[in-house]
């Protein structure tokens, strides 16, 4: 079956989407260990992409008043305050403050793209996933399908919106607005292969210096979505940052769903035939 073949595909995502000799796949490596929570990424993204204001709330969630990704927040900086047992001999507990800038993962196997019934969502030549807003009819299927809670419907507009990895900027050879604005290089943009190698070096460096909690998230092509185009270095479990610990692309199970729907349909016909055969007049 075509869907099964597609899901097992390990090669170049752009090439398997029909692009002839596409440029290398690009993405983000977000190294949260150097994030300072300045939210320059959030602001740069909103400014560049004309993303509308979506409520000026005070949440009480540390410095986070954005709350999460959605139609009008394509970058979201999470702030996590944790008490830690002091290690300096003073006997006093300390605080550690985790910050992380979340974004669309531009999955290798993107559920939003798979389930979109209009073809509004598409794979770009850069291997990223983008919504065509002139086609989207707001059916909402992508929103239920995304395992990360990224894409959402814009109020008063009805269509689905998410990060485009600055498709317009990529097309003219400049890096996405958030990466450009990041003052600490926590958000690094580049060819995915290069980022993966750099991320591994960075994780090893942190491990050597005693930061044993450092771990990569979404970097592996063997995970449930075939690897993320935008992946992370985290200092705690993914769910602490609001990320799913073991996401899968729902369409992985679609062939099985279709098979079972087929069997159920056949059963329906058999039952009706038997019912009419078995009933007395």
């Amino acid at each position, binding site marked *: 079956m075509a869907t099964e073949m597609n899901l097992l595909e390990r090669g170049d995502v752009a090439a398997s989407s029909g692009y002839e000799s596409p440029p290398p796949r690009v993405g983000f490596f977000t190294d949260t260990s150097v994030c300072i929570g300045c939210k320059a990424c959030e602001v740069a993204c909103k400014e560049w992409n004309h993303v509308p204001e979506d409520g000026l709330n005070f949440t009480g969630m540390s410095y986070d008043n954005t709350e999460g990704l959605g139609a009008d927040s394509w970058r979201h900086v999470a702030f996590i305050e944790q008490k830690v047992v002091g290690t300096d001999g003073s006997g006093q507990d300390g605080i550690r403050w985790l910050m992380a800038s979340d974004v669309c993962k531009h999955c290798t196997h993107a559920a939003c793209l798979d389930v979109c019934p209009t073809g509004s969502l598409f794979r770009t030549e850069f291997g990223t996933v983008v919504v065509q807003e002139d086609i989207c*009819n707001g059916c909402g299927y992508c929103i239920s399908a995304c395992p990360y809670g990224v894409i959402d419907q814009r109020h008063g507009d009805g269509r689905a919106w998410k990060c485009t990895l600055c498709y317009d900027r990529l097309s003219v050879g400049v890096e996405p607005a958030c990466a450009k604005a990041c003052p600490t290089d926590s958000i690094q943009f580049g060819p995915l292969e290069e980022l993966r190698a750099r991320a591994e070096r960075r994780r090893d460096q942190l491990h050597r210096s005693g930061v044993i909690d450092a771990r990569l998230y979404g970097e592996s092509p063997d995970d449930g979505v075939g690897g993320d185009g935008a992946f992370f270095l985290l200092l705690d479990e993914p769910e602490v940052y609001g990320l799913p610990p073991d996401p899968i692309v729902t369409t992985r199970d679609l062939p099985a769903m279709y098979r*079972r729907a087929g069997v159920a349909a056949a059963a329906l016909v058999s039952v009706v035939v038997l019912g009419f055969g078995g009933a007395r007049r």
Partner: protein
Amino acid sequence: MSSSVTKQGLREVHPGREAVSQVQATADVSQRPHRRAGGERSMVGEADFRSYYGKPIINKPVWEAPDIPGYLFLGGLAGASSVMAAAATASHRGALARALKLSSTAAVSLSGIALVHDLGRPARFANMLRVLKPSSPMSVGSWLLASFTPLSAAASLSALTGRFRLVGAAGTAGAALLGPAVATYTAALVSNTAVPAWHEGFKEMPFVFAASAVSSAAGMGLVVAPLHESGPARLLGVTSGAAELGLMELMKRNMGAVKEAFTSSEKAHRYEKGAKIAIVTGIAAALLGKHSRVASAFAGAGLLVGSALSRFAIFEAGLESAEDPRYTVVPQRKRLEERNRG
């Protein structure tokens, strides 16, 4: 590396992306397992589970009631009605056939309205037929409905007017051919999401939907058909109503911790209880009221209401499982741990 250059040389040399965090967590004492506020009843999966301020991991579906659960019900009613209508036509049960053809057309028309109404951009509904994508059950379903609706309408038109017999026969046969898919593809549609209570039920969901569809169509048959023609509807209503209840239980049991969403959501809990009562009442009335037209119609109404409430329960359980991060985190953690253990 970044720095500032002064007369004294480099000052304020910062390590940039090579920076190493100064504080290392040796124990995190603030993030105790997340618990719900207030003395709510204890739940499976409460044990060890962390989250970001209790915020959901996935975004809540934007599909709304009554449009979408209503559609799941009406699609099932339309699909199964068309199959039963063909069987009734073949077995010369004219009144039953006519009524089921009409119910199929009415249900599929209403469901079309519900689907377009639920779109964020209803005026763009025709974009559904812009492509045919097997990886999207909604795309497949749009083409199914676009083919099924005119066939069902042709069958109804011929049944009503008594003319265009050939077109009517073709419509009846065609609708009966597509009907089973119309009734069951919706299970693949809702299961093919990241919503835990929908996805985790993907193995049983098509069978729950098929049973619920036959139960509703049989219920319609009991409501509209005269007693001397309602034998098959009675038999099918009793059996598929019982099957619907049993399969729903089986589906929930195989969901693991996620089945709690059917009780932790007050709406889902209420709808499911209502569905059970309606279906059991319908079955009892169908069995006891064989010789009463009124009792038969009452039985049919019970089965119809029960089928609809089942779909609403599944829909609401899905929303609940999306809104509470436990339903995303706990099963995924368990899966990870099982994999790590080998």
